[in-house]
């Protein structure tokens, strides 16, 4: 028991960050499940985080209500942005969402109500560890269920071949927008939880590099099953602390290791680290590889 207390004293915050990052990774996963590559998740988390933070701090709105409000607003923005943007594909979509993210970041920097570069300071610490993990469990469960629903099948068919899906009578615009908006809602929710974790949020915490990090979590973990992104978020968020614990010196080496892990995974484990563990027949069949041997 004492050891557990000691562990939490040292790694409690890390445990919280892992949970938040897993939620954010899942929000991107929702969008990628329908084959859409978005770099806007960090901005949606920012919209949710800033909205929720401002509501609790300046208007005294109860915690859950303000997190919900942030999440809904993020979803609405997702809808407005998603409709025109989702006509684009692949890299073009990624760049469009990226420029949306930059505009959000610059807006936050220039507004007074968000505290500009100094950040929004003084948000009460209301997020609890159990709350984060409860949210993660609910999100994970829902997404796992979703996969076997009509929505899940539609997402998957769009990801596999959008033209064919459309030819089969699936309303691709509807489902693509749905996946985008669901992702925005979850990202906004995670952002709201994050805002109430550390007393302060700053624009930089929702920038381009964070969006790329979320993408990396998904790739390293694997984007074929919902627990892939969670695994990626857990491992990569904990990695700096694991290295710290094993005494790897600070600096470039740690950074290089991050890049190396990503490179090795994309080269040799196209379905992410999850494919090392539960490799079911179903997964194997869906591997996006046609010529490269599975383990390289």
């Amino acid at each position, binding site marked *: 028991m004492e050891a557990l207390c000691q562990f939490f004293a040292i790694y409690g915050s890390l445990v919280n960050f892992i949970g938040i990052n897993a939620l954010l990774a899942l929000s991107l996963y929702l969008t990628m499940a329908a084959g859409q590559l978005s770099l806007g998740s960090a901005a949606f988390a920012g919209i949710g985080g800033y909205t929720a933070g401002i509501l609790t701090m300046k208007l005294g709105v109860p915690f859950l209500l303000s997190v919900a409000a942030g999440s809904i607003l993020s979803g609405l923005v997702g809808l407005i942005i998603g409709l025109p943007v989702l006509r*684009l594909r692949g890299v073009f979509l990624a760049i469009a969402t990226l420029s949306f993210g930059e505009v959000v970041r610059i807006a936050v920097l220039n507004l007074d109500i968000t505290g500009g570069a100094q950040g929004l300071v003084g948000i009460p610490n209301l997020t609890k560890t159990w709350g984060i993990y409860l949210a993660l469990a609910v999100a994970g469960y829902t997404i796992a269920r979703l996969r076997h629903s009509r929505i899940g099948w539609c997402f998957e068919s769009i990801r596999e071949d959008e033209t064919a899906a459309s030819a089969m009578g699936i309303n691709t615009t509807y489902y693509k927008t749905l996946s985008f908006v669901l992702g925005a809602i979850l990202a906004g929710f995670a952002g709201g939880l994050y805002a109430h974790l550390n007393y302060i949020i700053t624009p930089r915490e929702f920038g381009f590099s964070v969006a790329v990090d979320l993408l990396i979590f998904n790739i390293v973990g694997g984007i074929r099953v919902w627990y892939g992104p969670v695994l990626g978020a857990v491992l990569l968020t904990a990695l700096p602390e694991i290295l710290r614990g094993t005494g790897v010196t600070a600096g470039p080496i740690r950074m*290089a290791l991050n890049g190396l892990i990503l490179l090795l995974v994309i080269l040799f484990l196209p379905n992410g680290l999850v494919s090392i563990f539960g490799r079911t027949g179903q997964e194997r069949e869906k591997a996006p590889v046609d010529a490269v041997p599975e383990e390289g």
Partner: protein
Amino acid sequence: MDLLAQQLINGLFIGSVYGLFAVGYTLVFGVLDILNLAHAAVFTLGGLLALWLVETGGLSIWLAFPVSVLCCGILGLLLDRVAFVPLRQRADSNFSGLISSIAMAIIFESAALGLFGARTVRFPAHTVPVHIWRWGGISITSLQVEIVAISLLLMVALTQFLNRARAGKAIRAVAENDRTSRLLGIHVDGIIAFTFFISSALGGAAGILFGLYFDSLSPDMGRSIELKGLAVIILGGMGSIPGAILGGLAFGLSEVLTVAITGTSNLRDAVAFTVLFAVLILRPSGLLGRKKMREA
């Protein structure tokens, strides 16, 4: 009047640097349909390597420039071999290529940090003699003229090469259709490697010119130009060389004119990214891109 003239000169100058950076970016995209996000890291390494050759190696800049450009070209070959060749046969190679280029970008940046340190450094004073011309309130430096000249020269040479030379025509053939090219007896893998060589060499050249003019080089100097470079190639039309040049100039001018017209600079980046966003929505093929919206 002087004010506007000076601003136009500023815009043309920075625009030509953006253009040179973006040409390499767009070349790889045109051939492989892959967004090579490690391009900015090569840009950084090119600048830092040239500085090292001048400062530690005691070379003159006229020698250091080609040596460093050559090294960047070789780095491009390495990039292709490690991060792109193994993925080429995959169905989702443009997506996984994007990811592996992110991995290489992280590795390159950490290498720059480890080799050259985190400090912002510059070329020794008078590496290139600088003369300043003034007419009334307008000023132009000889270095600016040289940089614009070198940029234009490189870009024209590249265009001529692609239109006239055998290898250049082969690059265009592969860009058009690699299967047909293979049937025509073109050594496709060699041509792709060669494309990476040229692209990275140009990226390195842009890094050196950038470092020479702005007197500041650091391992993270590629970050801000990375996003701008993306905007430039979208603006010009993905894969189009003249488009990248035009896009660079247009982007440089749009930045400068935002400042000149509004009188403040808060909105500079916001306007640039909003334009990018609008172009993607309204005319995703860019100014000079192929009409067909490409799947990437």
